[in-house]
């Protein structure tokens, strides 16, 4: 135990030390209350991350080696690719997001996690629903609607789970001890409110009572784009707004800007989505409104980017000391880059080239992985030691995790944007055939980029294994400390 400096002891009155001790105990109580729930949520999310990565590797490999696993019907590209998407979106990303949200809400509301069993129950429903959905997709029961491929028989489980989480969020907020809301809470509460609206509206309009014709594609893109912007993005930004200042020990550069960033995101983001349908059979005004809203997104993006950068300003050398900061700053910078890239992609002249190409895939991964997933990794690196009271077991594994995933996603995104743009230009050229093994063709020219994509996937997979090993090792260490503290417990 560390000795307390005498100057501090002298400076504090008995009342002060008692108050400080109470606050410290309250903090420990909050972290302890989250322990079983977060272990379950983060543990399950990591299992889905590994499953999702394997499915991604299979899908990616098939793009340049179509005979790979060609005899297994349940592993054809049309099934593996949506299985990957849903495994990482609902299995990994949403579960990690819910875990991070729970901890941040408890910490910021300064209240312990109440009714933990409700969240455990919700987690069971969520995992069963996702597992049934993924198996259903691999069995050929996909709905065929992008980002909503999970068969209708699995979605009620996700609904029940989410309802429980939403109710929990309201209860925690109701019983908060901190009167004022920090900006992260705005983001988190909005995400908890927006997701059920998006998911239920899309389910009703596309699955339960499907609308007809081109409106389907409009609703589909509205959902697919907004689930990224109104579910994952607010949680990612809320986490960055908490962890970067917290780790650095200095408040956010300009709090007013952060409030402006939140409200402008809320105002502009949900108009986005239709820009993916440039050239499609939709009313021109609908697409134009979406493009205008996409350009307006520069306001929240610049406010957030400016705030994160200026908060870090003068502290960049700290990146070598802190794993959390590395992941957070990488995620924050990726958010700025991917959002401004998205604004450019929304413009008609750009979209005419890049739509239907690998460039869109690169952009989606830049947002979902380089930004959101890296922020979730950073959040877990901060949260888990505080919840389990045990340090991460290996600095080497953390470094391997960071560099493998950071380099991996860069090797994924940059070549695929270049290749996708060249692909789009080639598709607009009538002299270049789409597929011809004997001539320069659109498909042939993309092969080097697709092989690079598979290589980057393997690199990312190495990083994920390093993280999974760290997580399991850390949990094992925590169990060992329990045995030391209470030997009888191990015999029971």
């Amino acid at each position: 135990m560390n000795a307390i400096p005498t100057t501090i002891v002298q400076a504090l009155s008995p009342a002060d030390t008692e108050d400080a001790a109470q606050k410290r105990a309250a903090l420990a109580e909050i972290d302890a209350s989250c322990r079983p729930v977060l272990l379950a949520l983060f543990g399950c999310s990591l299992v889905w991350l590994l499953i999702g990565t394997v499915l991604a590797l299979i899908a990616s490999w098939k793009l340049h080696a179509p005979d790979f696993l060609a005899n297994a019907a349940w592993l054809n590209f049309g099934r593996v690719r949506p299985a990957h998407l849903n495994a990482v979106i609902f299995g990994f990303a949403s579960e990690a997001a819910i875990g991070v949200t729970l901890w941040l809400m408890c910490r910021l509301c300064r209240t312990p996690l109440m009714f933990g069993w409700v969240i455990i129950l919700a987690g069971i429903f969520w995992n069963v629903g996702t597992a049934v959905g993924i198996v259903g997709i691999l069995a050929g029961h996909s709905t065929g609607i992008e980002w909503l491929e999970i068969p209708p028989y699995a979605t009620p489980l996700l609904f029940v789970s989410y309802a429980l989480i939403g109710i929990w969020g309201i209860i925690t907020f109701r019983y908060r001890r901190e009167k004022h809301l920090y900006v992260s809470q705005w983001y988190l509460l909005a995400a908890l409110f927006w997701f059920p609206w998006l998911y239920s509206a899309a389910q009703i309009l596309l699955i339960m009572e499907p609308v007809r014709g081109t409106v389907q594609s409009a609703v589909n893109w509205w959902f697919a784009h907004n689930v990224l912007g109104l579910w994952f993005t607010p949680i990612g930004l809320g986490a960055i707004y908490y962890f970067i200042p917290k780790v650095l020990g200095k408040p956010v550069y300009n709090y007013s800007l952060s409030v402006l960033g939140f409200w402008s995101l809320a105002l502009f983001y949900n108009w986005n989505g239709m820009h993916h349908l440039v050239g499609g059979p939709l009313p021109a005004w609908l697409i134009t409104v979406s493009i205008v809203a996409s350009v307006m997104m520069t306001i929240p993006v610049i406010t957030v980017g400016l705030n994160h950068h200026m908060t870090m300003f003068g502290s960049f050398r700290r990146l070598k000391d802190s794993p959390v900061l590395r992941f957070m700053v990488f995620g924050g910078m990726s958010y700025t880059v991917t959002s401004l890239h998205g604004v450019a992609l929304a413009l008609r002249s750009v979209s005419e080239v890049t739509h239907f190409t690998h460039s869109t895939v690169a952009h989606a991964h830049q947002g979902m992985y380089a930004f959101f997933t890296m922020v979730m990794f950073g959040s877990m690196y901060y949260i888990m030691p505080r919840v389990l009271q045990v340090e991460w077991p290996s600095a080497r594994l953390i470094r391997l995790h960071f560099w493998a995933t950071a380099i991996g996603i860069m090797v994924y995104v940059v070549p695929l944007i270049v290749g996708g743009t060249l692909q789009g230009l080639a598709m607009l050229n009538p002299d270049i055939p789409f597929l011809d093994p004997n001539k320069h063709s659109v498909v042939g020219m993309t092969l080097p980029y697709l092989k690079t994509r598979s290589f980057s996937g393997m690199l990312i997979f190495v990083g994920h294994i390093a993280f999974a090993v760290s997580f399991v090792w850390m949990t094992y260490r925590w169990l060992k400390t329990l045995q030391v503290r209470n030997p009888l417990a191990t015999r029971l």
Partner: protein
Amino acid sequence: MSVIWILFVTGVIVLPATALLALRWAMRQGEFRDLPRIALSIFDEEEPVGQFSDHFPGAAPRGNAGGPGPSSDGKRIRHHS
């Protein structure tokens, strides 16, 4: 058609109304007053302003302005003093 109308009413009236109510509630609560103080609300006794609160396992945090240091065994972390 009825479902479409429900969604239309929800999207055009209920959701914007909820956003406006949230904004009104926030203004009444004084959420937009004294913003610098709210920016400090994430800091506490355990991890105060001026304290760098993350480091690689096994490495002692350096350059802190104050606050508790690392645990003596380098493995267990704070809370239990």
